[in-house]
């Protein structure tokens, strides 16, 4: 008992050291998932982000077919990186609606001209209110919404080629 009491402080110190060192080497994961998966898309109605395409509202996701909701911005570099993958998804017949975060119409037009336009509808969210409303914490993020407007899946970060099968199967599941 006495020996244990003697060594206990060192043991406690080593445990703390272990915790701190792991914290330093492997910092806490920084992806914050939306807690709204399985919940309906919050009510919103956004004005068009570009003059040539309609804006987007919750009602647009309730026509019975699953869709992608892409949260992007013209000032976001990874959004340009995922553009070819979105293009590919659109070509296979996936409906993609977009919410442009803190953006200007002329910048969005320029972005779409440079990187392609896979979107049917583009809503402008100048104060990130819809982004916060759906539990998204950055750009780009992509949500799978089923035909009843329920959020089924969230992809955080840019969509890479290897993520396309997952998104397609989540869309299939949401059917």
């Amino acid at each position, binding site marked *: 008992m006495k020996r244990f009491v003697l060594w206990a402080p060192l043991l406690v110190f080593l445990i703390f050291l272990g915790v701190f060192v792991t914290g330093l080497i492997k910092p806490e994961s*920084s992806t914050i998932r939306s*807690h709204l998966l399985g919940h309906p898309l919050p009510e919103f109605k956004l004005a068009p982000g570009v003059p040539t395409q309609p804006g987007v509202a919750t009602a647009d996701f309730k026509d019975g077919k699953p869709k992608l909701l892409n949260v992007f*911005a013209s000032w976001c570099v990874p959004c340009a990186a995922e553009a070819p993958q979105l293009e590919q998804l659109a070509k296979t017949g996936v409906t993609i609606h977009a919410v442009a975060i803190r953006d200007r119409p002329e910048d969005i037009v320029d972005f779409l001209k440079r990187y392609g336009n896979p979107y049917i509808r583009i809503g402008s969210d100048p*104060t*990130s*209110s819809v982004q*916060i409303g759906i539990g998204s914490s950055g750009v780009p993020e992509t949500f799978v919404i089923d035909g009843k407007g329920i959020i089924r899946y969230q992809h955080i970060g840019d969509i890479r080629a290897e993520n396309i099968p997952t998104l397609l199967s989540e869309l299939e599941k949401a059917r």
Partner: protein
Amino acid sequence: MIASPHAVILKQVQHDGLACAAFAIFLATATPVFADSSLPPAPLAYTQLPDPRQEAKAAALMHSLRCLVCQGQSIADSDAEMAGDMRALVRQKIAAGESPDDIRDWLVARYGKWVSYDPPLDAMTAPLWIAPLLLLGIGGWVAYGRFRKHR
């Protein structure tokens, strides 16, 4: 024409390979991961509410909500654009008569308890409250044993 600061630095470091490498690293790390938009901040991001009582409520709440992109800071402390948008949202909701607890719950429903700096007492956080009491008890017990021995 005045050369940009970057161009001046570039000229200086071209003489020194090591500094050049350091500059390359500086350039690589200086690229912002979260780029900023060109829109001005939301109207209520940096403007207080006209009613001081409401503003006090909003400020207290903003100090206990976590910024989503900077993560180590509250939205009251952060200059990130999204933190500004969250402050604007909090002030709008307070001005509309919502209670701070409701607004916190609204955000927790979207981002989890992670977003709040004021964790509720539940099974997950209980050790945080119990551990200090337990350690204090052990400390008292050890001290008691020591003092008794020396007498």
